[in-house]
Protein backbone atom coordinates (compact mmCIF):
# COMPACT_ATOMS: atom_id res chain seq x y z
CA UNK A 1 0.00 0.00 0.00
CA UNK A 2 2.72 2.37 0.98
CA UNK A 3 4.55 1.58 -2.18
CA UNK A 4 1.47 2.17 -4.34
CA UNK A 5 0.87 5.45 -2.58
CA UNK A 6 4.41 6.48 -3.23
CA UNK A 7 4.18 6.04 -6.98
CA UNK A 8 0.63 6.96 -7.83
CA UNK A 9 -1.10 8.30 -4.77
CA UNK A 10 -4.03 6.92 -2.79
CA UNK A 11 -6.69 8.40 -5.11
CA UNK A 12 -5.34 6.86 -8.30
CA UNK A 13 -5.20 3.46 -6.68
CA UNK A 14 -8.81 3.75 -5.51
CA UNK A 15 -9.92 4.74 -8.98
CA UNK A 16 -8.20 1.67 -10.37
CA UNK A 17 -9.90 -0.61 -7.87
CA UNK A 18 -13.30 0.88 -8.76
CA UNK A 19 -12.61 0.53 -12.48
CA UNK A 20 -11.54 -3.05 -11.96
CA UNK A 21 -14.72 -3.87 -10.06
CA UNK A 22 -16.87 -2.13 -12.67
CA UNK A 23 -15.24 -4.13 -15.43
CA UNK A 24 -15.45 -7.45 -13.58
CA UNK A 25 -19.10 -6.73 -12.76
CA UNK A 26 -20.04 -6.03 -16.34
CA UNK A 27 -18.24 -9.13 -17.57
CA UNK A 28 -20.23 -11.25 -15.13
CA UNK A 29 -23.48 -9.46 -16.02
CA UNK A 30 -23.11 -10.01 -19.76
CA UNK A 31 -22.01 -13.60 -19.25
CA UNK A 32 -25.21 -14.21 -17.34
CA UNK A 33 -27.18 -12.44 -20.05
CA UNK A 34 -25.65 -14.75 -22.65
CA UNK A 35 -26.44 -17.97 -20.85
CA UNK A 36 -29.91 -16.90 -19.75
CA UNK A 37 -31.62 -17.84 -23.06
CA UNK A 38 -30.50 -21.45 -22.81
CA UNK A 39 -31.67 -21.62 -19.20
CA UNK A 40 -35.01 -20.08 -20.12
CA UNK A 41 -35.43 -22.45 -23.05
CA UNK A 42 -34.72 -25.53 -20.97
CA UNK A 43 -37.00 -24.26 -18.20
CA UNK A 44 -39.87 -23.60 -20.58
CA UNK A 45 -39.51 -26.94 -22.35
CA UNK A 46 -39.37 -28.89 -19.10
CA UNK A 47 -42.21 -26.97 -17.48
CA UNK A 48 -44.52 -27.37 -20.46
CA UNK A 49 -43.32 -30.74 -21.71
CA UNK A 50 -42.76 -32.93 -18.68
CA UNK A 51 -46.43 -34.03 -18.50
CA UNK A 52 -46.16 -35.74 -21.87
CA UNK A 53 -42.87 -37.50 -21.19
CA UNK A 54 -43.73 -41.09 -20.28
CA UNK A 55 -43.10 -44.56 -21.63
CA UNK A 56 -45.77 -44.17 -24.30
CA UNK A 57 -43.97 -41.09 -25.55
CA UNK A 58 -41.07 -43.25 -26.67
CA UNK A 59 -42.94 -46.41 -27.63
CA UNK A 60 -46.13 -45.29 -29.38
CA UNK A 61 -46.55 -43.44 -32.62
CA UNK A 62 -48.20 -40.06 -32.86
CA UNK A 63 -51.96 -39.93 -32.11
CA UNK A 64 -54.45 -38.65 -34.64
CA UNK A 65 -56.09 -35.33 -34.06
CA UNK A 66 -59.38 -36.86 -32.87
CA UNK A 67 -57.71 -38.90 -30.09
CA UNK A 68 -55.84 -35.79 -29.06
CA UNK A 69 -58.97 -33.66 -29.08
CA UNK A 70 -60.82 -36.10 -26.83
CA UNK A 71 -57.94 -36.20 -24.36
CA UNK A 72 -57.49 -32.45 -24.30
CA UNK A 73 -61.23 -31.99 -23.85
CA UNK A 74 -61.16 -34.30 -20.84
CA UNK A 75 -58.13 -32.52 -19.44
CA UNK A 76 -55.98 -35.63 -19.81
CA UNK A 77 -52.51 -36.29 -21.15
CA UNK A 78 -52.60 -36.77 -24.93
CA UNK A 79 -52.28 -40.50 -25.67
CA UNK A 80 -49.55 -41.94 -27.88
CA UNK A 81 -46.04 -40.72 -28.43
CA UNK A 82 -43.64 -39.79 -31.16
CA UNK A 83 -42.05 -43.13 -31.93
CA UNK A 84 -42.50 -42.60 -35.67
CA UNK A 85 -40.53 -39.36 -35.36
CA UNK A 86 -37.78 -40.82 -33.18
CA UNK A 87 -37.36 -43.83 -35.45
CA UNK A 88 -37.42 -41.68 -38.58
CA UNK A 89 -34.85 -39.24 -37.22
CA UNK A 90 -32.50 -42.01 -36.14
CA UNK A 91 -32.99 -43.86 -39.42
CA UNK A 92 -32.42 -40.87 -41.67
CA UNK A 93 -29.47 -39.60 -39.64
CA UNK A 94 -27.97 -43.09 -39.86
CA UNK A 95 -28.35 -43.25 -43.65
CA UNK A 96 -27.06 -39.68 -44.00
CA UNK A 97 -24.02 -40.61 -41.89
CA UNK A 98 -23.38 -43.66 -44.08
CA UNK A 99 -23.23 -41.34 -47.07
CA UNK A 100 -21.49 -38.34 -45.53
CA UNK A 101 -18.85 -39.86 -43.24
CA UNK A 102 -16.80 -41.80 -45.81
CA UNK A 103 -17.01 -39.05 -48.40
CA UNK A 104 -16.31 -36.33 -45.83
CA UNK A 105 -13.32 -38.14 -44.34
CA UNK A 106 -11.81 -38.87 -47.75
CA UNK A 107 -12.18 -35.30 -48.99
CA UNK A 108 -10.83 -34.02 -45.65
CA UNK A 109 -7.77 -36.25 -45.99
CA UNK A 110 -7.36 -35.11 -49.58
CA UNK A 111 -7.44 -31.43 -48.57
CA UNK A 112 -4.93 -32.08 -45.79
CA UNK A 113 -2.65 -34.02 -48.10
CA UNK A 114 -2.74 -31.50 -50.94
CA UNK A 115 -2.77 -28.41 -48.74
CA UNK A 116 -0.92 -26.08 -51.03
CA UNK A 117 -2.18 -27.40 -54.36
CA UNK A 118 -4.35 -25.13 -56.48
CA UNK A 119 -7.19 -27.59 -57.03
CA UNK A 120 -7.32 -28.36 -53.31
CA UNK A 121 -7.91 -24.63 -52.79
CA UNK A 122 -10.78 -24.74 -55.25
CA UNK A 123 -12.29 -27.75 -53.48
CA UNK A 124 -11.89 -25.97 -50.13
CA UNK A 125 -13.73 -22.90 -51.44
CA UNK A 126 -16.51 -25.02 -52.86
CA UNK A 127 -16.88 -26.81 -49.53
CA UNK A 128 -17.15 -23.47 -47.77
CA UNK A 129 -19.80 -22.32 -50.22
CA UNK A 130 -21.68 -25.59 -49.77
CA UNK A 131 -21.69 -24.97 -46.03
CA UNK A 132 -23.39 -21.64 -46.66
CA UNK A 133 -26.15 -22.95 -48.91
CA UNK A 134 -29.54 -22.53 -47.17
CA UNK A 135 -30.89 -25.89 -46.06
CA UNK A 136 -34.19 -25.40 -47.87
CA UNK A 137 -32.26 -25.12 -51.13
CA UNK A 138 -30.50 -28.40 -50.41
CA UNK A 139 -33.93 -29.90 -49.75
CA UNK A 140 -35.08 -28.65 -53.12
CA UNK A 141 -32.07 -30.19 -54.84
CA UNK A 142 -32.61 -33.51 -53.08
CA UNK A 143 -36.23 -33.29 -54.18
CA UNK A 144 -35.24 -33.06 -57.82
CA UNK A 145 -32.44 -35.61 -57.58
CA UNK A 146 -34.04 -38.28 -55.46
CA UNK A 147 -37.78 -37.72 -55.05
CA UNK A 148 -38.32 -37.05 -58.75
CA UNK A 149 -35.80 -39.39 -60.27
CA UNK A 150 -34.88 -42.21 -57.92
CA UNK A 151 -37.59 -43.06 -55.44
CA UNK A 152 -40.47 -41.55 -57.41
CA UNK A 153 -41.99 -40.10 -54.30
CA UNK A 154 -41.10 -38.63 -50.93
CA UNK A 155 -38.68 -40.92 -49.18
CA UNK A 156 -36.21 -41.48 -46.36
CA UNK A 157 -33.43 -41.65 -48.94
CA UNK A 158 -34.29 -38.19 -50.21
CA UNK A 159 -34.27 -36.81 -46.66
CA UNK A 160 -30.99 -38.52 -45.89
CA UNK A 161 -29.44 -37.16 -49.08
CA UNK A 162 -30.30 -33.60 -48.11
CA UNK A 163 -28.97 -34.17 -44.58
CA UNK A 164 -25.81 -35.83 -45.92
CA UNK A 165 -25.05 -32.82 -48.11
CA UNK A 166 -25.38 -30.65 -45.02
CA UNK A 167 -23.08 -32.89 -42.99
CA UNK A 168 -20.33 -33.20 -45.55
CA UNK A 169 -18.75 -29.75 -45.37
CA UNK A 170 -18.69 -29.94 -41.58
CA UNK A 171 -16.95 -33.32 -41.59
CA UNK A 172 -14.56 -32.28 -44.37
CA UNK A 173 -13.36 -29.17 -42.57
CA UNK A 174 -13.12 -30.81 -39.15
CA UNK A 175 -11.17 -33.70 -40.67
CA UNK A 176 -8.74 -31.33 -42.36
CA UNK A 177 -8.31 -29.23 -39.21
CA UNK A 178 -7.83 -32.31 -37.01
CA UNK A 179 -5.16 -33.76 -39.27
CA UNK A 180 -3.39 -30.41 -39.49
CA UNK A 181 -3.10 -30.37 -35.71
CA UNK A 182 -1.16 -33.63 -35.60
CA UNK A 183 2.51 -32.69 -35.28
CA UNK A 184 4.54 -33.31 -38.42
CA UNK A 185 7.19 -35.01 -36.29
CA UNK A 186 4.85 -37.99 -35.92
CA UNK A 187 4.57 -38.29 -39.69
CA UNK A 188 8.34 -38.01 -40.04
CA UNK A 189 8.75 -40.74 -37.43
CA UNK A 190 6.73 -43.04 -39.63
CA UNK A 191 8.56 -41.92 -42.73
CA UNK A 192 11.94 -42.53 -41.07
CA UNK A 193 10.86 -46.13 -40.48
CA UNK A 194 10.32 -46.54 -44.22
CA UNK A 195 6.53 -46.67 -43.92
CA UNK A 196 4.81 -45.87 -47.24
CA UNK A 197 2.81 -42.67 -47.32
CA UNK A 198 -0.65 -44.24 -47.59
CA UNK A 199 0.08 -46.43 -44.59
CA UNK A 200 1.23 -43.41 -42.60
CA UNK A 201 -2.14 -41.80 -43.30
CA UNK A 202 -4.15 -44.90 -42.50
CA UNK A 203 -2.22 -46.27 -39.56
CA UNK A 204 -0.58 -43.23 -37.97
CA UNK A 205 -2.53 -40.09 -38.86
CA UNK A 206 -6.07 -41.41 -38.59
CA UNK A 207 -5.57 -43.26 -35.29
CA UNK A 208 -3.77 -40.21 -33.85
CA UNK A 209 -6.60 -37.92 -34.87
CA UNK A 210 -9.37 -40.40 -34.15
CA UNK A 211 -10.98 -38.49 -31.29
CA UNK A 212 -10.90 -35.30 -33.36
CA UNK A 213 -12.52 -37.02 -36.33
CA UNK A 214 -15.17 -38.52 -34.07
CA UNK A 215 -15.88 -35.13 -32.51
CA UNK A 216 -16.33 -33.60 -35.96
CA UNK A 217 -18.78 -36.31 -36.93
CA UNK A 218 -20.79 -35.96 -33.69
CA UNK A 219 -21.01 -32.20 -34.09
CA UNK A 220 -22.10 -32.61 -37.71
CA UNK A 221 -24.86 -34.97 -36.56
CA UNK A 222 -25.95 -32.56 -33.86
CA UNK A 223 -26.16 -29.83 -36.48
CA UNK A 224 -28.46 -31.75 -38.83
CA UNK A 225 -30.58 -33.67 -36.35
CA UNK A 226 -32.94 -30.72 -35.90
CA UNK A 227 -33.16 -29.76 -39.58
CA UNK A 228 -36.76 -29.34 -40.68
CA UNK A 229 -36.98 -27.42 -43.92
CA UNK A 230 -35.11 -29.86 -46.18
CA UNK A 231 -37.08 -32.78 -44.77
CA UNK A 232 -40.40 -31.14 -45.61
CA UNK A 233 -39.47 -31.29 -49.28
CA UNK A 234 -37.98 -34.78 -49.19
CA UNK A 235 -39.10 -37.12 -46.39
CA UNK A 236 -42.45 -35.37 -46.07
CA UNK A 237 -43.46 -37.11 -42.82
CA UNK A 238 -45.50 -40.16 -41.96
CA UNK A 239 -47.90 -41.38 -39.30
CA UNK A 240 -46.26 -44.81 -39.42
CA UNK A 241 -42.92 -46.05 -38.16
CA UNK A 242 -41.07 -46.48 -41.44
CA UNK A 243 -37.77 -48.15 -42.20
CA UNK A 244 -38.29 -48.48 -45.91
CA UNK A 245 -35.80 -46.32 -47.70
CA UNK A 246 -38.16 -45.36 -50.56
CA UNK A 247 -41.16 -44.44 -48.45
CA UNK A 248 -42.12 -41.18 -46.75
CA UNK A 249 -40.69 -41.00 -43.26
CA UNK A 250 -41.34 -38.94 -40.19
CA UNK A 251 -38.78 -37.12 -38.06
CA UNK A 252 -38.93 -35.34 -34.71
CA UNK A 253 -38.66 -31.82 -36.21
CA UNK A 254 -41.30 -32.70 -38.82
CA UNK A 255 -43.63 -33.86 -36.05
CA UNK A 256 -43.05 -30.63 -34.11
CA UNK A 257 -44.10 -28.71 -37.20
CA UNK A 258 -47.21 -30.91 -37.61
CA UNK A 259 -48.14 -30.54 -33.93
CA UNK A 260 -47.75 -26.79 -34.27
CA UNK A 261 -50.32 -26.79 -37.07
CA UNK A 262 -52.86 -28.80 -35.09
CA UNK A 263 -54.43 -26.95 -32.14
CA UNK A 264 -55.25 -30.25 -30.41
CA UNK A 265 -51.65 -31.42 -30.40
CA UNK A 266 -50.01 -28.30 -28.95
CA UNK A 267 -48.96 -30.11 -25.75
CA UNK A 268 -46.81 -32.49 -27.75
CA UNK A 269 -44.74 -29.65 -29.20
CA UNK A 270 -43.02 -29.08 -25.90
CA UNK A 271 -42.13 -32.63 -25.07
CA UNK A 272 -40.92 -33.30 -28.62
CA UNK A 273 -38.81 -30.14 -28.57
CA UNK A 274 -37.43 -31.14 -25.19
CA UNK A 275 -36.36 -34.52 -26.54
CA UNK A 276 -34.77 -33.00 -29.65
CA UNK A 277 -32.96 -30.45 -27.54
CA UNK A 278 -31.71 -33.16 -25.20
CA UNK A 279 -30.39 -35.18 -28.12
CA UNK A 280 -28.43 -32.20 -29.44
CA UNK A 281 -27.19 -31.36 -25.96
CA UNK A 282 -26.08 -34.93 -25.41
CA UNK A 283 -24.15 -35.02 -28.68
CA UNK A 284 -22.45 -31.77 -27.79
CA UNK A 285 -21.56 -32.91 -24.29
CA UNK A 286 -20.26 -36.19 -25.67
CA UNK A 287 -17.98 -34.45 -28.15
CA UNK A 288 -16.77 -32.09 -25.42
CA UNK A 289 -15.98 -35.10 -23.28
CA UNK A 290 -13.96 -36.60 -26.11
CA UNK A 291 -12.04 -33.37 -26.63
CA UNK A 292 -11.35 -33.09 -22.89
CA UNK A 293 -10.07 -36.64 -22.68
CA UNK A 294 -7.79 -36.07 -25.65
CA UNK A 295 -5.98 -33.13 -24.07
Amino acid sequence: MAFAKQISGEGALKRRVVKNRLFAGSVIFFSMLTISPILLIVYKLVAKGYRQINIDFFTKKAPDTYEAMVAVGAGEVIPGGILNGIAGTLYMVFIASLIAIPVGLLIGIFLYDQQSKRYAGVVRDVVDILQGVPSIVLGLIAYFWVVKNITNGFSALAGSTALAIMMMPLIIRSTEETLKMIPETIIEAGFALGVPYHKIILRVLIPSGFSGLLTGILLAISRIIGETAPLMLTALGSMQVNFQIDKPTSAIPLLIWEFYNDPNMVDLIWSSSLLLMMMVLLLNLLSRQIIARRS
Partner: protein
Amino acid sequence: MSELIKQISDPVLEIRDLSVSYNKDKSAVTAVSAGIKKNRVTAIMGPSGCGKSTLLRAINRMHDLYPNVETVGDIFLNGEDTADMSTMMLRRKIGMVFQRPNPFPTMSIHDNVIAGYKLNGIRLQKSDKNDIVEKSLRDVALWDEVKDSLIKKGTFLSGGQQQRLCIARALAFKPDVILLDEPTSALDPVATKKVEELLMQLKKDYTIVMVTHNMAQAARISDFSMFMYLGELIEYGKTKDMFIKPIDTRTEEYLTGKFS
Protein backbone atom coordinates in the same frame (compact mmCIF):
# COMPACT_ATOMS: atom_id res chain seq x y z
CA MET B 1 40.07 -31.35 -46.97
CA SER B 2 40.70 -34.22 -49.36
CA GLU B 3 43.46 -35.89 -47.36
CA LEU B 4 41.24 -35.72 -44.31
CA ILE B 5 38.53 -37.62 -46.09
CA LYS B 6 41.06 -40.25 -47.10
CA GLN B 7 41.82 -40.85 -43.43
CA ILE B 8 38.41 -42.49 -43.18
CA SER B 9 39.23 -45.96 -44.41
CA ASP B 10 36.48 -48.45 -45.30
CA PRO B 11 33.61 -46.06 -44.65
CA VAL B 12 30.10 -47.35 -43.96
CA LEU B 13 28.63 -44.31 -45.60
CA GLU B 14 30.20 -42.39 -48.41
CA ILE B 15 28.79 -39.04 -49.44
CA ARG B 16 29.94 -37.78 -52.84
CA ASP B 17 29.36 -34.26 -54.10
CA LEU B 18 26.04 -33.96 -52.37
CA SER B 19 24.04 -30.79 -52.92
CA VAL B 20 20.55 -30.17 -51.63
CA SER B 21 18.39 -27.17 -52.52
CA TYR B 22 14.96 -26.13 -51.31
CA ASN B 23 14.47 -23.84 -54.27
CA LYS B 24 16.31 -23.21 -57.51
CA ASP B 25 18.31 -20.17 -56.46
CA LYS B 26 19.61 -21.22 -53.11
CA SER B 27 21.24 -24.45 -52.08
CA ALA B 28 21.17 -25.52 -48.45
CA VAL B 29 24.00 -28.03 -48.83
CA THR B 30 26.70 -27.49 -51.44
CA ALA B 31 28.96 -30.21 -52.84
CA VAL B 32 29.64 -32.09 -49.63
CA SER B 33 31.87 -35.16 -49.82
CA ALA B 34 32.71 -37.24 -46.79
CA GLY B 35 33.07 -40.78 -45.56
CA ILE B 36 31.58 -41.92 -42.29
CA LYS B 37 33.61 -44.40 -40.27
CA LYS B 38 32.09 -47.57 -38.95
CA ASN B 39 31.39 -47.90 -35.21
CA ARG B 40 32.26 -44.31 -34.48
CA VAL B 41 30.25 -41.27 -33.46
CA THR B 42 30.47 -38.55 -36.07
CA ALA B 43 29.15 -35.14 -35.09
CA ILE B 44 27.97 -32.52 -37.55
CA MET B 45 28.39 -29.05 -36.07
CA GLY B 46 27.72 -25.58 -37.30
CA PRO B 47 25.63 -22.49 -36.72
CA SER B 48 21.85 -22.50 -37.28
CA GLY B 49 20.92 -22.72 -40.92
CA CYS B 50 24.28 -24.08 -42.05
CA GLY B 51 22.66 -27.13 -43.60
CA LYS B 52 23.63 -29.73 -41.04
CA SER B 53 20.12 -31.13 -40.59
CA THR B 54 19.58 -30.97 -44.35
CA LEU B 55 22.71 -33.05 -44.88
CA LEU B 56 21.64 -35.56 -42.25
CA ARG B 57 18.19 -35.92 -43.77
CA ALA B 58 19.65 -36.50 -47.20
CA ILE B 59 21.39 -39.61 -45.89
CA ASN B 60 18.16 -41.56 -45.36
CA ARG B 61 16.34 -39.66 -48.12
CA MET B 62 13.86 -37.90 -45.85
CA HIS B 63 13.76 -35.19 -48.48
CA ASP B 64 11.75 -37.55 -50.69
CA LEU B 65 8.77 -36.48 -48.57
CA TYR B 66 8.91 -32.96 -49.99
CA PRO B 67 8.68 -32.68 -53.77
CA ASN B 68 10.25 -29.21 -53.89
CA VAL B 69 13.55 -30.40 -52.43
CA GLU B 70 16.18 -31.26 -55.02
CA THR B 71 19.06 -33.55 -54.16
CA VAL B 72 22.11 -33.99 -56.43
CA GLY B 73 25.05 -36.29 -55.77
CA ASP B 74 25.44 -39.80 -54.45
CA ILE B 75 25.42 -41.50 -51.10
CA PHE B 76 26.70 -45.05 -50.79
CA LEU B 77 25.85 -47.37 -47.94
CA ASN B 78 28.35 -50.23 -47.75
CA GLY B 79 29.19 -49.52 -51.38
CA GLU B 80 25.58 -49.59 -52.55
CA ASP B 81 24.00 -46.47 -54.03
CA THR B 82 21.19 -45.43 -51.68
CA ALA B 83 19.28 -43.91 -54.58
CA ASP B 84 18.79 -47.42 -55.96
CA MET B 85 17.45 -48.86 -52.73
CA SER B 86 13.78 -48.89 -51.78
CA THR B 87 13.06 -46.34 -49.08
CA MET B 88 11.86 -49.13 -46.83
CA MET B 89 15.11 -51.11 -47.15
CA LEU B 90 17.20 -47.96 -46.86
CA ARG B 91 15.47 -46.85 -43.69
CA ARG B 92 15.68 -50.28 -42.14
CA LYS B 93 19.43 -49.93 -42.50
CA ILE B 94 19.61 -46.27 -41.52
CA GLY B 95 17.53 -45.39 -38.49
CA MET B 96 16.68 -41.85 -37.48
CA VAL B 97 16.02 -40.05 -34.20
CA PHE B 98 14.61 -36.54 -34.15
CA GLN B 99 15.02 -33.33 -32.22
CA ARG B 100 11.82 -33.76 -30.28
CA PRO B 101 10.87 -37.20 -28.99
CA ASN B 102 8.09 -38.44 -31.26
CA PRO B 103 6.70 -41.77 -30.10
CA PHE B 104 3.46 -42.71 -31.85
CA PRO B 105 0.79 -41.36 -29.50
CA THR B 106 -1.72 -44.13 -30.16
CA MET B 107 0.71 -46.97 -29.54
CA SER B 108 1.88 -48.65 -26.34
CA ILE B 109 5.55 -48.67 -25.39
CA HIS B 110 5.78 -52.25 -26.67
CA ASP B 111 4.19 -51.37 -30.00
CA ASN B 112 6.28 -48.24 -30.37
CA VAL B 113 9.47 -50.28 -30.27
CA ILE B 114 8.30 -52.59 -33.04
CA ALA B 115 6.39 -49.86 -34.88
CA GLY B 116 8.67 -50.25 -37.90
CA TYR B 117 7.60 -53.85 -38.27
CA LYS B 118 3.95 -53.20 -37.50
CA LEU B 119 3.48 -50.26 -39.82
CA ASN B 120 5.33 -51.94 -42.67
CA GLY B 121 3.19 -55.03 -42.27
CA ILE B 122 6.12 -57.30 -41.40
CA ARG B 123 4.73 -60.22 -39.42
CA LEU B 124 6.67 -61.51 -36.45
CA GLN B 125 6.23 -64.42 -34.10
CA LYS B 126 5.06 -63.31 -30.68
CA SER B 127 8.28 -64.54 -29.06
CA ASP B 128 10.36 -62.71 -31.69
CA LYS B 129 8.39 -59.55 -30.97
CA ASN B 130 9.05 -59.81 -27.26
CA ASP B 131 12.73 -60.52 -27.86
CA ILE B 132 13.13 -57.51 -30.11
CA VAL B 133 11.28 -55.27 -27.64
CA GLU B 134 13.35 -56.44 -24.70
CA LYS B 135 16.67 -56.30 -26.55
CA SER B 136 16.00 -52.83 -27.96
CA LEU B 137 14.82 -51.44 -24.64
CA ARG B 138 17.80 -52.98 -22.86
CA ASP B 139 20.10 -51.40 -25.44
CA VAL B 140 18.76 -47.96 -24.53
CA ALA B 141 18.76 -48.74 -20.79
CA LEU B 142 15.02 -48.31 -20.60
CA TRP B 143 14.00 -51.91 -19.97
CA ASP B 144 14.19 -51.80 -16.19
CA GLU B 145 12.22 -48.57 -16.08
CA VAL B 146 9.34 -49.71 -18.28
CA LYS B 147 9.25 -53.50 -18.22
CA ASP B 148 6.14 -53.49 -16.04
CA SER B 149 4.28 -50.92 -18.07
CA LEU B 150 4.88 -52.03 -21.65
CA ILE B 151 1.18 -51.75 -22.43
CA LYS B 152 1.06 -48.11 -21.39
CA LYS B 153 1.13 -45.42 -24.04
CA GLY B 154 4.60 -44.21 -24.96
CA THR B 155 3.53 -40.64 -24.39
CA PHE B 156 3.21 -41.27 -20.63
CA LEU B 157 6.99 -41.41 -20.30
CA SER B 158 9.17 -38.43 -19.45
CA GLY B 159 10.85 -36.54 -22.28
CA GLY B 160 14.19 -38.28 -21.78
CA GLN B 161 12.55 -41.70 -21.60
CA GLN B 162 10.53 -40.91 -24.73
CA GLN B 163 13.70 -40.02 -26.58
CA ARG B 164 15.33 -43.27 -25.51
CA LEU B 165 12.18 -45.08 -26.62
CA CYS B 166 12.57 -43.42 -30.03
CA ILE B 167 16.17 -44.61 -30.17
CA ALA B 168 14.96 -48.11 -29.28
CA ARG B 169 12.44 -47.87 -32.11
CA ALA B 170 15.29 -47.09 -34.50
CA LEU B 171 17.40 -49.94 -33.06
CA ALA B 172 14.61 -52.50 -33.45
CA PHE B 173 15.46 -52.83 -37.16
CA LYS B 174 19.12 -53.51 -36.26
CA PRO B 175 20.30 -50.75 -38.58
CA ASP B 176 23.87 -50.16 -39.73
CA VAL B 177 23.70 -46.44 -39.12
CA ILE B 178 21.71 -44.28 -36.72
CA LEU B 179 21.14 -40.64 -37.60
CA LEU B 180 20.32 -38.28 -34.75
CA ASP B 181 19.12 -34.74 -35.34
CA GLU B 182 19.97 -32.76 -32.20
CA PRO B 183 18.62 -35.58 -30.05
CA THR B 184 19.13 -33.82 -26.73
CA SER B 185 18.10 -30.27 -27.54
CA ALA B 186 14.65 -30.77 -26.00
CA LEU B 187 15.94 -32.62 -22.93
CA ASP B 188 17.07 -31.54 -19.48
CA PRO B 189 20.74 -32.00 -18.47
CA VAL B 190 20.18 -35.27 -16.60
CA ALA B 191 18.32 -36.84 -19.51
CA THR B 192 20.92 -35.44 -21.89
CA LYS B 193 23.69 -37.14 -19.95
CA LYS B 194 21.86 -40.45 -20.13
CA VAL B 195 21.39 -40.20 -23.89
CA GLU B 196 25.05 -39.24 -24.36
CA GLU B 197 26.23 -42.22 -22.30
CA LEU B 198 23.90 -44.37 -24.30
CA LEU B 199 25.36 -43.20 -27.61
CA MET B 200 28.87 -44.00 -26.37
CA GLN B 201 27.64 -47.52 -25.60
CA LEU B 202 25.81 -47.93 -28.88
CA LYS B 203 28.78 -47.17 -31.07
CA LYS B 204 30.09 -50.67 -30.31
CA ASP B 205 27.35 -52.06 -32.53
CA TYR B 206 26.25 -49.14 -34.64
CA THR B 207 27.62 -46.25 -36.60
CA ILE B 208 26.28 -42.98 -35.28
CA VAL B 209 25.92 -39.68 -37.08
CA MET B 210 24.66 -36.86 -34.92
CA VAL B 211 23.79 -33.26 -35.65
CA THR B 212 24.42 -30.94 -32.73
CA HIS B 213 24.89 -27.28 -32.22
CA ASN B 214 26.28 -27.94 -28.82
CA MET B 215 30.06 -27.90 -29.28
CA ALA B 216 30.69 -29.30 -25.82
CA GLN B 217 28.52 -32.27 -26.64
CA ALA B 218 30.43 -32.92 -29.86
CA ALA B 219 33.68 -32.73 -27.91
CA ARG B 220 32.39 -35.09 -25.22
CA ILE B 221 31.08 -37.93 -27.30
CA SER B 222 32.16 -37.77 -30.93
CA ASP B 223 35.18 -39.37 -32.53
CA PHE B 224 34.94 -37.40 -35.74
CA SER B 225 33.53 -33.95 -36.34
CA MET B 226 32.31 -32.06 -39.34
CA PHE B 227 32.07 -28.31 -39.28
CA MET B 228 29.57 -26.86 -41.74
CA TYR B 229 29.07 -23.24 -42.63
CA LEU B 230 26.64 -21.78 -45.18
CA GLY B 231 25.97 -25.19 -46.66
CA GLU B 232 29.59 -26.14 -47.17
CA LEU B 233 31.62 -28.70 -45.31
CA ILE B 234 34.47 -26.52 -44.09
CA GLU B 235 36.40 -28.99 -42.03
CA TYR B 236 36.20 -32.66 -41.21
CA GLY B 237 38.48 -34.71 -39.06
CA LYS B 238 39.12 -36.35 -35.73
CA THR B 239 37.25 -34.41 -33.05
CA LYS B 240 40.35 -34.21 -30.87
CA ASP B 241 42.42 -32.67 -33.65
CA MET B 242 39.73 -30.26 -34.68
CA PHE B 243 39.13 -28.91 -31.20
CA ILE B 244 42.85 -28.60 -30.42
CA LYS B 245 44.07 -27.27 -33.72
CA PRO B 246 41.42 -26.35 -36.27
CA ILE B 247 42.77 -25.81 -39.77
CA ASP B 248 40.27 -23.35 -41.16
CA THR B 249 39.92 -19.93 -39.53
CA ARG B 250 36.11 -20.18 -39.71
CA THR B 251 36.22 -23.39 -37.70
CA GLU B 252 38.47 -21.74 -35.19
CA GLU B 253 36.20 -18.73 -34.91
CA TYR B 254 33.18 -20.96 -34.41
CA LEU B 255 34.87 -23.15 -31.84
CA THR B 256 36.14 -20.17 -29.90
CA GLY B 257 32.72 -18.60 -29.87
CA LYS B 258 33.39 -15.69 -32.24
CA PHE B 259 30.08 -16.58 -33.91
CA SER B 260 27.45 -19.19 -33.32
